[in-house]
C-alpha cells in the first residue's frame, strides 16, 4: 500500500516543517530572551517532536541531528548552559540542516550532517563537560531527565510498538502515537530497529518494532488502556534500569515487569520543567505569544479557491434574483424580508469565505528577522529590524507574490541604506541602524512601509548615474526635482550600489520590484532625505479575487477595466477634441498631450465605425505613463469576481481575466499594461511634443477656471470661482427664518445667516421667491454667510478674460463672457463686507502692517491678476504686476521689492523656476517668495519647498493671504528679512499647508 506509506511520511514532513517554522523565530528571540523558560521549552519540544517521529521512519540523520540539538536544549533548560550568539548560530544552522533533510526526506540518510552536528557537539562537550555521545543507534538518556522524572514520582516504562500491528492497522499515524505519549507523560527516548531495512520504502513496508522509554504518573494497567496495546508490550523499569538501559537491542529481550515503589505523585500532572508551573498535559502543545491555536484545521487552497468562486457566483445569483423579483416582491407579503435576508446572508458568506484566504502578513515578515540577522553579520553592520502590524491580513495570493519584492527592499535597506557603524558614528547617529517594517490598513488597501535611518539617497548621484548609464538625458535630469530623481531608481537597468554585492545585487532591480507590485494592482512610492534615511511605501489591494472595475460597453459587449488603473474619465467632444500628432491620436488634457487608443480598433472588433469623438476616454496609468482608452459607452462601476483565462486566450495580451456579469454573460477584463504594449504607445515622443507645444501656444497654458454659474433674477447670470464654494444647499423658501432684518437658516445645529445679492449689489431683484432656493456657502472666508440664489445653472471649466471696468459696484469683481453670455463675477469679500460691516470692517482697519510694502505680483491669468490686484489694493500695498515669470525676473532686476507673490503655472519661466533663479541670485536670494496655486496639491508643496518657496497660498483666499503677508513682512520695514526668518516661516507654513 504505497499510498498509505507516503501519507504517513507526508504527515511527518508536514508536521516537522511546522515545527521548524516555529523553531526559527523562537531561536532568534532566544538570543535576546535568554531566560524565557517558556521559549526554551518550546524550542526543546519542537526539536524533540521531530526527533521522536523521525525514529519511526528510520531517518537516521534527522534523528541524530535533532537528538544533538535536543541535548543542547535540555542543558539550556536546566540552566547548565546559557544561550549565546554562537549557540544560536549553531542551532540555527542545525535547524536549516534539518529543513534540508526533511525537504528531501528520502535521501536524508545519505546527506552529510557532520558540520552542523560537530558544531553542536562542541558546545555540548566544551561548555558543559558532558560527553553526550549521541548516536542514532541506541538510546541514550539524559540523566537529568531521569532524575527529574523520578523526583516527580514517575514510573518508567519501556514500550514496544509495531508499526503495522499497533499503528497502521488501527488507522493511526506514528505521530498520533507520539502525541499520545507526550500527553501521557514524558517521552524519554525512542528507537526503531532499522538494522534490517534498507531505504525508506522498506522501512514503511515492514512491520517494524519501535521501542520507547517513557516516564509517566500512570500505572501500568492504565498505560495498557491508554496506549491501546497488549500488556506484554509494556515493561516497567526502575530508575536504575532506565539509566543503564544503554543502547537498546530490541527483539527478544523482554524486560521483566517490576513494580517500582515510589511515592504517590502529589499532583496528577505531567512533568514540567524547572521553574515552570505545572500545566495540564494538553497545555504542553500550547504556548504563549504568537503560536498557533489548536482549534484550526488544514484545508487545501484549491478547496478555498473553489469556495471563493462559488461564493462569488452566489453573490451574482443573488443580484439577479433581486433584480428579477423586484416586481413580485411588491405583491407577495413577506417576500421582501426574505430577499433581504438572503441578500445579507450572501454578503456575509462571501466576506467570510474571503477571510478564509486571508493570512497575517507576519507569516512572511518573520523571515526578515533572520535575513537581517544574517546580513548584519556578513556586512559588519548593526541593524535592528522592527516589525509592526504583523497581524494585518492579506489575501494568500497577494502575500505570496509580495514576499520577493519585500525581501529585495529589505536587503537593499540593509546593504545600501544602513551605514557601517563607523560612518554612523561620524554622522552622530546611533550605531545600530533601524529598519522599520510596518503593515497597516488604509482605506480598503494595505499599506506596507519600509523605512530605514540610513544614509538616504543622493539625488545628484542618482541623476549622474542615470545619465552615465544612458537611462536619462543630462538636460532632463537637470530639471528634475528630488522626488523625480528618486524615481530614476525604478528605471530598468539602474542599480545604486557602486559594486554588485552578493547580498543584494542579485540581478533584479527596483524596476522588477515595481513591476511586481503593480502586477498586484498596487503602487510603490519612494521618499528619501540625504543622511536621514529612506522610506518606501507599498500600497496593495486586500485581495485579487474580487476587484472594483468600471464596466464599459462596446456594441453589445461589455468589458471591465480595473479601477486601480483608472485615473480619471474624460468625456470626449466639445472642447475635448481628438487631435492628431505625428499620425497618432492624442487628447490635450490640461496642457499635456495624452496618447489615445480606441478600444474597438485595438481589438480589431467588427463593431467599429462609432464616432470616437463622442465617446469617453478612460485615462489609464501604467507606471509613470498615462494614456487614454477610448470607449463608446460607460456603463457602471461594479465589483467583479476575477476568473483566470484559458491557455487559448492568455496570449492576447489585452486581457487580464474574465468575469461573469450579473446577467450571466461573460465579460473580459481589460489589462491596461497589455493594452499600452499592444498599441505600442510612444510616450517619450509625446512628452517632447508636449513640451514644444507648451512653448508655442502660451494661450493654452492659461489656467482654466472652474466656475459656478447661477442666476438670481431673470437672465442675469453670475459666477463664482468654484474654489470659493464650500457647498450648495437646496432649501425650501418657507424654511428660511427672519430675525429682525436678517434672514437665517438652521443648518446642522447652528444657524447660517443668508444674504441676497440684490440687497447689496446693483442687480435685479426677483419678483417672488420660488418654492425652492439655493444657498451657496462659500469657503475661505472668516465669517461664512449663505448667498441665496434662485437657480444654479452649471459648473463649468472656462478660460476667461475679466473686464473690470465695464461693470463696477459693490460685490462685483468684473464681467466676462462665459459660454456666450455676459456674466457678472461676484466678489464675495466686498459683498460680505457690505452685508456684515461689523465683522469685516474691523478686519480691514487692523492691517497697518502691510501698508506701504512693495510687492511684485507675477500672474499670467488676467482673471486672477485682477482679483489679486484688488486684494493688494485693499491691503494698502504698493505693488507692480508682471504678466509672466520673465517679466517678473526683469522687474526684480530693476526694482527692489519686499516680497514676490507668484503664480506657479506660467509660460516661459514658471513659478518654481523663477524661485530657483531668485534663490540662486546673490542679491535676491533673501527675497520672500509666496507661491499662489489653485489647489494645494502635495506634489506642488514638495516641489515648491525644493525650489525655495517660503509659503503657499490658495488663490482667492484673501484672509489667509493677508495673514501670511503680515507674518512674513510684519515688523520689517522695506528691508529684506534675514534669511533665518524667511526659512523659519517657510518651514512652519509648509507644514500647515500639508496638514490642511
Amino acid at each position: 500500500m504505497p499510498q498509505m506509506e507516503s501519507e504517513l511520511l507526508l504527515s511527518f514532513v508536514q508536521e516537522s516543517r511546522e515545527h521548524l517554522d516555529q523553531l526559527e523565530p523562537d531561536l532568534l528571540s532566544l538570543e535576546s530572551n535568554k531566560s524565557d523558560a517558556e521559549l526554551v521549552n518550546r524550542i526543546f519540544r519542537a526539536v524533540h517532536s521531530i526527533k521522536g517521529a523521525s525514529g519511526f521512519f528510520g531517518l537516521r540523520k534527522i534523528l541524530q541531528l535533532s537528538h544533538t540539538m535536543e541535548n543542547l536544549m535540555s542543558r539550556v533548560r536546566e540552566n547548565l548552559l546559557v544561550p549565546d550568539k554562537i549557540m544560536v548560530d549553531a542551532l540555527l544552522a542545525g535547524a536549516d540542516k534539518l529543513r534540508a533533510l526533511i525537504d528531501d526526506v528520502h535521501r536524508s540518510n545519505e546527506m552529510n550532517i557532520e558540520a552542523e552536528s560537530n558544531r553542536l557537539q562542541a558546545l555540548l562537550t566544551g561548555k558543559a563537560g558532558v560527553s553526550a555521545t549521541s548516536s542514532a543507534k541506541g538510546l541514550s538518556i539524559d540523566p537529568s531527565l531521569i532524575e527529574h522524572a523520578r523526583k516527580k514520582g514517575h514510573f518508567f516504562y519501556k514500550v514496544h510498538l509495531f508499526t503495522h500491528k499497533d499503528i497502521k492497522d488501527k488507522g493511526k499515524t506514528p505521530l498520533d502515537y507520539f502525541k499520545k505519549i507526550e500527553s501521557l507523560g514524558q517521552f524519554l527516548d525512542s528507537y526503531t530497529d532499522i538494522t534490517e531495512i534498507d531505504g525508506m520504502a522498506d522501512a514503511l513496508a515492514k512491520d517494524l518494532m519501535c521501542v520507547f522509554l517513557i516516564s509517566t504518573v500512570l500505572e501500568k494497567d492504565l498505560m495498557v488502556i491508554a496506549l491501546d496495546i497488549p500488556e506484554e508490550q509494556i515493561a516497567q523499569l526502575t530508575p536504575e534500569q532506565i539509566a543503564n538501559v544503554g543502547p537498546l537491542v530490541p527483539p527478544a529481550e523482554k524486560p521483566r515487569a517490576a513494580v517500582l515503589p515510589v511515592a504517590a505523585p502529589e499532583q496528577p500532572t505531567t512533568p514540567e520543567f524547572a521553574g515552570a508551573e505545572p500545566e495540564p498535559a494538553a497545555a504542553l502543545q500550547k504556548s504563549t505569544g504568537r503560536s498557533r491555536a489548536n482549534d484550526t484545521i488544514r484545508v487545501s487552497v484549491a478547496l478555498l479557491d473553489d469556495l471563493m468562486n462559488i461564493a462569488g457566483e452566489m453573490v451574482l445569483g443573488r443580484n439577479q434574483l433581486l433584480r428579477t423579483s423586484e416586481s413580485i416582491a411588491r405583491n407577495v407579503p413577506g417576500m421582501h424580508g426574505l430577499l433581504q435576508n438572503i441578500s445579507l446572508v450572501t454578503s456575509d458568506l462571501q466576506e467570510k469565505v474571503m477571510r478564509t484566504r486571508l493570512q497575517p502578513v507576519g507569516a512572511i515578515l518573520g523571515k526578515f528577522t533572520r535575513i537581517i540577522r544574517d546580513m548584519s553579520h556578513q556586512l559588519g553592520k548593526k541593524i535592528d529590524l522592527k516589525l509592526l502590524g504583523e497581524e494585518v491580513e492579506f489575501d494568500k495570493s497577494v502575500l505570496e507574490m509580495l514576499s520577493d519584492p519585500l525581501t529585495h527592499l529589505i536587503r537593499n535597506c540593509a546593504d545600501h541604506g544602513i551605514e557601517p557603524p563607523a560612518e554612523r558614528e561620524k554622522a552622530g547617529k546611533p550605531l545600530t541602524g533601524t529598519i522599520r517594517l510596518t503593515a497597516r490598513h488604509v482605506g480598503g488597501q494595505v499599506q506596507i512601509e519600509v523605512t530605514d535611518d540610513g544614509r538616504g539617497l543622493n539625488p545628484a548621484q542618482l541623476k549622474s548615474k542615470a545619465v552615465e548609464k544612458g537611462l536619462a538625458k543630462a538636460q532632463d535630469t537637470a530639471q528634475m526635482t528630488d522626488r523625480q530623481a528618486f524615481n530614476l531608481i525604478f528605471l530598468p537597468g539602474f542599480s545604486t550600489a557602486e559594486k554588485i554585492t552578493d547580498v543584494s545585487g542579485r540581478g533584479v532591480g527596483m524596476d522588477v520590484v515595481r513591476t511586481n507590485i503593480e502586477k498586484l494592482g498596487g503602487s510603490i512610492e519612494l521618499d528619501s532625505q540625504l543622511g536621514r534615511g529612506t522610506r518606501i511605501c507599498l500600497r496593495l489591494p486586500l485581495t485579487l479575487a474580487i476587484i472594483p472595475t468600471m464596466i464599459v460597453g462596446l456594441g453589445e459587449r461589455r468589458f471591465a477595466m480595473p479601477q486601480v488603473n483608472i485615473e480619471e474619465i474624460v468625456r470626449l467632444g466639445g472642447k475635448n477634441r481628438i487631435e492628431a500628432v505625428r499620425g497618432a491620436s492624442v487628447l490635450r488634457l490640461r496642457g499635456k498631450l495624452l496618447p489615445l487608443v480606441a478600444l474597438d480598433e485595438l481589438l480589431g472588433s467588427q463593431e467599429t465605425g462609432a464616432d470616437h469623438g463622442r465617446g469617453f476616454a478612460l485615462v489609464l496609468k501604467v507606471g509613470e505613463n498615462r494614456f487614454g482608452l477610448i470607449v463608446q459607452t460607460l456603463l457602471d462601476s461594479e465589483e467583479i469576481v476575477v476568473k483566470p483565462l484559458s491557455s487559448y486566450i492568455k496570449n492576447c495580451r489585452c486581457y487580464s481575466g474574465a468575469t461573469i456579469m450579473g446577467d450571466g454573460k461573460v465579460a473580459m477584463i481589460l489589462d491596461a499594461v497589455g493594452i499600452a504594449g499592444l498599441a505600442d504607445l510612444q510616450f517619450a515622443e509625446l512628452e517632447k511634443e508636449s513640451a514644444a507645444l507648451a512653448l508655442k501656444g502660451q494661450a493654452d497654458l492659461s489656467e482654466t477656471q472652474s466656475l459656478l454659474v447661477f442666476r438670481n433674477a431673470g437672465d442675469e447670470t453670475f459666477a463664482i470661482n468654484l474654489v470659493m464654494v464650500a457647498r450648495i444647499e437646496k432649501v425650501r423658501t418657507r424654511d428660511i427664518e427672519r430675525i429682525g432684518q436678517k434672514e437665517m437658516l438652521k443648518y446642522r445645529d447652528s444657524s447660517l445667516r443668508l444674504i441676497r445679492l440684490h440687497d447689496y449689489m446693483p442687480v435685479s431683484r426677483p419678483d417672488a421667491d420660488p418654492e425652492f432656493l439655493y444657498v451657496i456657502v462659500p469657503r475661505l472666508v472668516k465669517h461664512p454667510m449663505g448667498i441665496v440664489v434662485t437657480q444654479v445653472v452649471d459648473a463649468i471649466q472656462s478660460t476667461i478674460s475679466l473686464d473690470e471696468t465695464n461693470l463696477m459696484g459693490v460685490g462685483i469683481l468684473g464681467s466676462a463672457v462665459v459660454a456666450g453670455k455676459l456674466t457678472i463675477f461676484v466678489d464675495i469679500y466686498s459683498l460680505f463686507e457690505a452685508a456684515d460691516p461689523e465683522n469685516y470692517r474691523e478686519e480691514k482697519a487692523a492691517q497697518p502692517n502691510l501698508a506701504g510694502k512693495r510687492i511684485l505680483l507675477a500672474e499670467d491669468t488676467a482673471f486672477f491678476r485682477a482679483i489679486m490686484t484688488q486684494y493688494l489694493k485693499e491691503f494698502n500695498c504698493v505693488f507692480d504686476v508682471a504678466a509672466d515669470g520673465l517679466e517678473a525676473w526683469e522687474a526684480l532686476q530693476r526694482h527692489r521689492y519686499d516680497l514676490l507673490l507668484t503664480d506657479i503655472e506660467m509660460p516661459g519661466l514658471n513659478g518654481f523656476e523663477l524661485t530657483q533663479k531668485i534663490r540662486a541670485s546673490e542679491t535676491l536670494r533673501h527675497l520672500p517668495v509666496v507661491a499662489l496655486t489653485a489647489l494645494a496639491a502635495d506634489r506642488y508643496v514638495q516641489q515648491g519647498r525644493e525650489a525655495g518657496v517660503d509659503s503657499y497660498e490658495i488663490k482667492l483666499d484673501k484672509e489667509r493671504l493677508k495673514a501670511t503677508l503680515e507674518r512674513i513682512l510684519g515688523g520689517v520695514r522695506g528691508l529684506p528679512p534675514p534669511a533665518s526668518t524667511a526659512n523659519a516661516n517657510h518651514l512652519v507654513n509648509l507644514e500647515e499647508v500639508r496638514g490642511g
Partner: protein
Amino acid sequence: MANRQFITFYLGDDLFGLDILLVREINRNMDITKVDRAPDCVRGLMNLRGQIVTVLDLGVRLNIGARPIGRESSCVVLKTKAELGRSSHAGLDAHSAEDLTGLLVDRIGDVVSVEEDHIEPPPAHAGGIKGLFIEGVVKLQQQLLIALDVREVLRTQGESTP
C-alpha cells in the same frame, strides 16, 4: 472484446465521435462572448453555471469552415485534466485540456457503442479533414463515424496569436 462508447455529432453531413469518457456534458446554451484577438478557433467564452468555458469552433479547428449557429447547435463540454485524473480510467487525462473547454458542433447524434476491434486506423483524409485529427474510423450501417483524437484537437502549440 471491450466496447467503447462514443458521443456522436455532426459537422455538416459528416458524423464525428468522441469517447464518452472525455465528455462532461452537452450544452445548448449558445450565449457565447466573442473574444477579440483570440486565435481563430476560439469561438468565445461561455458561462457554465459560474464557470467559464472556452468554446472552440470545431469546424475551424478541423479546417472545414466556421460553424454557423443554428437551432440545433450544441457545445460538447469536455472534462478537464483534473476531472479525468480523478476518474478510474487511468491515462485519459492526457487527452484533455487544463481548463474547461467546449467544442461547438452543428448537431448532436446518438451515443454509439463500438467494439474496439471495429475501429479502423485513420486514413490520410476523411470527411475533408486531416488524418492527424482522427483517432480511427468506424463503419456504421449508414455512415462512417470519424472518431476524433481530442489531444490533437485541443493542442494549442503552433497556434499563433495575431
